[in-house]
């Protein structure tokens, strides 16, 4: 990176964090610290909700996925608008009416303490473990791209987030996220424009899309239903609906965002803004990946995009074999450029026969390059069984640092840092609020002063920040456990959603039945996930439906020992 890029990176980060800290000054009581005094307008909520969901990996993975697999990933989000509607109708008015700080607080009012404690515990377990990965995943990519030790990138991201989240609480998180998302939108748009301009003379936006389409990268819609494939319309709408409803309705890192709304209407508008923007936003991010793919039809891509892995194999006994593959790949890339130009000319001439012939020839070269890439990856595995042979996350940043103009590189690297910090800040804030509200205030110290709870919240943020930072620093040594941590959310969300569905819609079911049903459901879901019975996207639907069915069946047989305090909602 050039000096200009470093300056752009530093100034962007400083301005955003400075703004968040400035706007959150004077945060004194618990209401201000945990829910921003319930005073924020809809656009704050909308952008904050989006920033919480969009981790750095969203901006790194999605273009890389489009590059290697096409745009079908966008279907994953088709259930989101429907989930937002259900949230607006049910969850938002209830949480606002009861003025809760956490989603789990409501469950004690509806059921009992043990159900509240169980869901809060499941959330702390899942979010506490996964937040370390939220920091680690972009850190390792940035370290490879910037050629900096991963410990420094991890410490840099982690420490900055802890400092401003501890200082300003929810308000600092929300204000920084608002600016973050604005800069992310602007940066990604600029990147898209620059990619189109980098295409060879005579190849425009339309041609690049046609080219990608002919190579099966514009595979946005797949109507074929397959429970083992999560990227089709039906998995996206049904499986995605349950996943998004679980995430936005029961994960405190999201609930905490829309609890900051100044009214039910403002929270609803924020969520509906997300419902309208999320899919087009994902589409545009994937489109950038497709444009990068088209760009690489005319320019030679590296055989493998992760420079650290390439460095390792070149220092090993397999270096000679790898370099031969690189030479063959470069030769194939030259062929590809010729065939791609032929296809563009055929497309412009409108001659269908010529288009078909050119398409077949280009596809043949594409198959050749794919095979060479697979051989390269196999070589890496032979050299080191633990080698990371999926370079999807490296495609976009590798392209950015090599081809984008000075200044824009710094801005796009800043976007990765910002996205990572945005989702981490929400996670730390939600971990702290659940720890203080559902454990400290409820069980340990019921009658303390407001100031005591604010101090406890700050300490809890520091505590979780350190835990997550340690997780991030040691994530590289977790091996297969890392994958398990990534899947943990799918194992847990469905069960928690089921508990909330029973709470909202099945008033006759009591606490004991729900608690037992939750334990049974959790065991079944973990088993199904472990044995890969269905794609993980379906685990949320399975967990939710199973819990509702089990709770309904066992409820008449279970005697409720405690007095219930039911809310008429």
């Amino acid at each position: 990176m050039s000096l200009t890029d470093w300056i752009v990176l530093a100034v962007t980060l400083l301005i955003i964090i400075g703004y968040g800290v400035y706007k959150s000054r004077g945060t004194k009581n618990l209401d201000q610290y945990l829910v921003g005094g319930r005073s924020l307008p809809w656009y704050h909520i909308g952008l904050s909700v989006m920033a919480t969901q969009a981790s750095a990996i969203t901006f790194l993975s999605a273009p890389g996925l489009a590059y290697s697999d096409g745009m079908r990933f966008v279907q994953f989000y088709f259930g989101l608008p429907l989930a937002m509607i259900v949230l607006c109708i049910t969850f938002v008015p209830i949480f606002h009416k009861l003025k809760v700080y956490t989603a789990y607080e409501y469950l004690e009012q509806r059921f009992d303490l043990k159900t509240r404690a169980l869901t809060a515990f499941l959330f702390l377990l899942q979010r506490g473990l996964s937040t370390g990965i939220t920091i680690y995943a972009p850190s390792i990519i940035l370290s490879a791209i910037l050629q900096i030790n991963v410990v420094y990138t991890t410490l840099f991201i982690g420490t900055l987030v802890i400092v401003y989240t501890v200082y300003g609480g929810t308000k600092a998180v929300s204000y920084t996220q608002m600016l973050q998302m604005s800069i992310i939108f602007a940066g990604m748009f600029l990147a898209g424009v620059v990619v189109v301009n980098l295409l060879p003379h005579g190849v425009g936006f339309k041609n690049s899309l046609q080219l990608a389409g002919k190579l099966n990268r514009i595979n946005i819609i797949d109507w074929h239903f397959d429970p083992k494939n999560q990227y089709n319309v039906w998995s996206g709408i049904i499986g995605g609906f349950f996943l998004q409803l679980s995430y936005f309705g029961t994960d405190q890192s999201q609930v905490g965002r829309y609890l900051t709304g100044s009214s039910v209407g403002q929270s609803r508008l924020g969520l509906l803004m997300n419902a309208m923007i999320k899919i087009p936003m994902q589409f545009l991010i994937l489109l950038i990946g497709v444009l990068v793919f088209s760009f690489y039809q005319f320019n030679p891509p590296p055989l493998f995009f992760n420079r650290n892995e390439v460095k390792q194999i070149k220092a090993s006994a397999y270096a000679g074999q790898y370099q031969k593959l690189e030479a063959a790949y470069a030769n194939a890339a030259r062929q590809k450029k010729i065939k791609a130009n032929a296809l563009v000319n055929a497309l412009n001439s409108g001659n269908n026969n010529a288009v078909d012939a050119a398409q077949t020839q280009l596809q043949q070269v594409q198959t050749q390059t794919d095979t060479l890439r697979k051989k390269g990856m196999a070589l890496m595995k032979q050299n080191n069984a633990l080698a990371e042979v999926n370079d999807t996350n490296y495609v976009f940043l590798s392209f950015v640092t090599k081809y984008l103009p000075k200044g824009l590189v710094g801005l796009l690297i800043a976007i990765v840092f910002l996205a990572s910090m945005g989702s981490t800040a929400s996670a730390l804030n939600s971990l702290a609020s659940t720890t203080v509200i559902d454990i400290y205030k409820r069980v340990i110290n019921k009658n303390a002063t407001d100031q005591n709870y604010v101090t406890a919240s700050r300490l809890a943020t520091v505590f979780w920040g350190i835990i997550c930072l340690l997780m991030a620093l040691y994530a590289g040594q977790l091996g297969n456990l890392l994958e398990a941590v990534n899947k943990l959310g799918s194992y847990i969300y469905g069960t928690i959603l089921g508990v909330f569905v029973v709470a909202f819609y099945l008033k006759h079911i009591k606490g004991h039945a729900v608690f037992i049903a939750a334990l049974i459901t959790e065991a079944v879901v973990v088993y199904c996930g472990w044995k890969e019975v269905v794609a993980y996207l379906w685990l949320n639907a399975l967990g939710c439906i199973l819990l509702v069915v089990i709770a309904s069946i066992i409820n008449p047989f279970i005697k409720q020992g405690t007095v219930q305090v039911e809310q008429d909602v």
Partner: protein
Amino acid sequence: MTPDRQDLPKFIKSWNQFYGIIIVWLVFLIFIFWLITTLLK
């Protein structure tokens, strides 16, 4: 007008109408994506 309704944009009469618009928007997006997929195959 209830306080809840006051938050709505002026051109939308009720929350249910807004939810309907979101569903229409989703259907529209899926249709456009299907069209792009088909045309660029």
